[in-house]
C-alpha cells in the first residue's frame, strides 16, 4: 500500500464538529476516516482528500494547494471575512498545509508501523528509539518528560527506547496512534533497535521474543484484504455508541455489535455485484427545505418527510430507457459522452445528497433529482422516485452536463411555474419526458 492509497481509502466524515471533539472519538475510527475540522460538506472533503493523496503521490504542495483553491471556488465556498487568512480559512496556506502534512505523515507512519510489526521485521528489530529526525522551527523541549509520563524508560545517554508493542507509543501520541507523528508539526520520529541491543538493554529476552513473534504470525495484518474497514466493535447501548451517534447522527450505523460509517457500507456493498439493501435514513431537514422552497418540488417534501431511503440492487439491474441497465454508469458511454464512469468512491456522496444536495429538480410528477456539485467541476445526480409511496433510489450517475445546466442554457424548460413542451431530453434515462 502506498501513502496515497491509504489516504484515499479513508471514509469521508463530513461534520460540524471541531478538532477537539474529533480527538475524543476512538483512534481506531479516526484512523479510518478523513475529517477536517468543521468541514460539513462531503464534496469539499472529497477534494481535500484528493489533495492530500496527490501530495503523497509527489504533486508539489504548491500545485496541490492551487488545485484545491480552484475546487473550492467552483463549489462556491466562501470564508467569512473575519476568518480569512486564519487556520479556519480553507483557502489559507496554513490550513491546507496542516491538512496535507498531517494526512501524509499519518499515512506514512501507519504504513511503516504495519511493516515494522511484520513477524520477520519484529524478530530482527523488536524495539525502537524515539528521537529527533528533523529540525523544526520551535522544537518542544519536554519530550523526555512526556515520555516518562507515558510510562517510558530513559536509558543512558537520555535515550528513549521501548519495544514496538509497548503501550507507551499510544500514550505518548496526541493522536493516540502508535506511530508518528506524535504531535502536530513534530520533528520526532523513530529508529529501529536490533534484537541484540534490545536484549542487552533488558527490554526482552530471546524466549519472550520468540513468543511475541509467534503471536504476530497468528495476527491478521490490518487491511489484509487490501481494504481498510471503517468499523469498530461496539455495543449499541454503550457510552461510546451514544457519543458517536450524538456527534455523527446517521453517518454512523451500529449493527450486530459493529460501528460502521454509512458511506463506507454503501461504497463497498454496491460494487460486490451481490444483492443488498441499505437504509440511508430519513431525509435531512436541509433537503426538505430545498424541496419545499420551490413550487415544482414542494409536493416531494411532503411525500418523503420522515420516510427512510432504501437502496438495493434493483436500481443497478433495472433497464434503462435508452438501452442496457444502470450498470452502464460504471463504463464510458459513447451515447452520453458527458457522463463520467462511476467508481467506488463516488458512492460516498450518496448520503450527502440525501442530506444537503446543491440543487433539487422536478423531473416528473413522481420523480425528482438531487444534484451535488463535485470538487472536480462535474455533478453527481441522484434520482428519487415516489411512485410507490416511499422514496426509492432510482438511479445515480456523474456528469459534466446535468439537467440544471441544460435548463440554465435554455436547452430544457424548467418545470417550475408552467411546464412547456420541449424536445425529449436525450441525456437522462427517467428524465426523458418533460411534457406540458
Amino acid at each position, binding site marked *: 500500500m502506498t501513502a496515497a492509497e491509504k489516504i484515499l481509502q479513508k471514509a469521508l466524515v463530513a461534520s460540524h464538529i471541531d478538532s477537539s471533539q474529533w480527538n475524543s472519538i476512538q483512534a481506531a475510527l479516526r484512523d479510518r476516516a478523513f475529517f477536517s475540522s468543521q468541514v460539513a460538506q462531503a464534496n469539499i472533503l472529497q477534494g481535500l482528500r484528493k489533495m492530500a493523496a496527490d501530495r503523497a503521490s509527489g504533486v508539489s504542495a504548491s500545485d496541490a494547494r492551487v488545485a484545491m483553491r480552484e475546487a473550492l471556488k467552483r463549489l462556491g465556498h466562501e470564508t467569512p471575512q473575519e476568518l480569512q487568512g486564519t487556520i479556519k480559512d480553507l483557502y489559507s496556506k496554513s490550513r491546507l498545509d496542516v491538512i496535507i502534512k498531517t494526512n501524509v505523515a499519518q499515512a506514512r507512519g501507519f504504513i511503516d508501523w504495519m511493516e515494522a510489526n511484520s513477524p520477520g521485521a519484529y524478530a530482527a*528489530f523488536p524495539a525502537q528509539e524515539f528521537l529527533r529526525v528533523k529540525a523544526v522551527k520551535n522544537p518542544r523541549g519536554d519530550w523526555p518528560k512526556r515520555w516518562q509520563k507515558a510510562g517510558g524508560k530513559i536509558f543512558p545517554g537520555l535515550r528513549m527506547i521501548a519495544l514496538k508493542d509497548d503501550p507507551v507509543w499510544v500514550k505518548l501520541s496526541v493522536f493516540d496512534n502508535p506511530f508518528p507523528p506524535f504531535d502536530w508539526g513534530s520533528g520526532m520520529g523513530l529508529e529501529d533497535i536490533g534484537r541484540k541491543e534490545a536484549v542487552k538493554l533488558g527490554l526482552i529476552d530471546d524466549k519472550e521474543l520468540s513468543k511475541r513473534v509467534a503471536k504476530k504470525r497468528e495476527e491478521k495484518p490490518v487491511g489484509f484484504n487490501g481494504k481498510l474497514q471503517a468499523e469498530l466493535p461496539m455495543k449499541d447501548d454503550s457510552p461510546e455508541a451514544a457519543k458517536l451517534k450524538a456527534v455523527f447522527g446517521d453517518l454512523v450505523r451500529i449493527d450486530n455489535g459493529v460501528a460502521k460509517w454509512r458511506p463506507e457500507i454503501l461504497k463497498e456493498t454496491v460494487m460486490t455485484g451481490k444483492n443488498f439493501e441499505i437504509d440511508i435514513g430519513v431525509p435531512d431537514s436541509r433537503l426538505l427545505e430545498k424541496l419545499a422552497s420551490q413550487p415544482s418540488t414542494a409536493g416531494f417534501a411532503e411525500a418523503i418527510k420522515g420516510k427512510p431511503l432504501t437502496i438495493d440492487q434493483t436500481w443497478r439491474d433495472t433497464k434503462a430507457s435508452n438501452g442496457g441497465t444502470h450498470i452502464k454508469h460504471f463504463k464510458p458511454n459513447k451515447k452520453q459522452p458527458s457522463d463520467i464512469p462511476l467508481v467506488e468512491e463516488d458512492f460516498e456522496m450518496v448520503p450527502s445528497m440525501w442530506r444537503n444536495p446543491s440543487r433539487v429538480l422536478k423531473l416528473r410528477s413522481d420523480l425528482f433529482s438531487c444534484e451535488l456539485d463535485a470538487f472536480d467541476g462535474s455533478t453527481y445526480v441522484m434520482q428519487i422516485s415516489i411512485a410507490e409511496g416511499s422514496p426509492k433510489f432510482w438511479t445515480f450517475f456523474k456528469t459534466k452536463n446535468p439537467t440544471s445546466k441544460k435548463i440554465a442554457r435554455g436547452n430544457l424548460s424548467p418545470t417550475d411555474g408552467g411546464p412547456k413542451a420541449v424536445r425529449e431530453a436525450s441525456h437522462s434515462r427517467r428524465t426523458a419526458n418533460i411534457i406540458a
Partner: protein
Amino acid sequence: MVLRLEIPPQLPDGMSSRELAQAAARGISNALKRHFRAKNQSAKHRNGMPRSNFWSKVADATQTTMEGNTAVVLVDHEGVLLHLDGGTIYPKAGRKALAIPLVAAVWDQNPREYDSAREKLSLVWPKGSRAGTLRDKTTGEAWYLLVAKANIPRDPGVVPADEELSQAGFEAMEALS
C-alpha cells in the same frame, strides 16, 4: 525509486523465506533512512531561506512491502531518481519557465498561488539572457528566479554503497538465526 530484494529458499531451521525477506528489507530500509537523514543534516541551504528538508522527506517516504515472498524496498519520492542519475527539470506543460523562490516569504509557493501576482510582481527578462526574475513592483526585490530548465548533477552519494546495504540486510537476517 524501487529496490527489489529476493531471499533464498527456506532454510533448515524452519524460518520461512518470507520472514527472512521481511527482516532483510527492514534492515536495508533502516540503513537507507539513516543515510537520508544524515544527508539532510549536512545539506547546505541558502542563507535566509527555510530548510527544505528534502532528504528528510525522502527518508519518510522509504518503506518496505512484500510481494509474495519477495521483499521490496521502495523509496516513494519523486526527485530521488533525478539526483541518483542526474537529469534536467523542465517546466510543466503550459508553463514557460521554472520559478525558483529567492525570498523566504515564497519559498514553497509558486507564482500561481498569488491571485494578485500580476498586480504585485513584474517580469524582468533581459533580452538574450538565460534567466529572468519576477520582482516586487514596489521595492524591486527579486522574488523568483525564472529559468528555462534546471540541470541536476548526478550524485553517487544518494544511496549508500551496495555493500553497505547488503551488509545491513544480512545482519538483520542473522538476528533471526
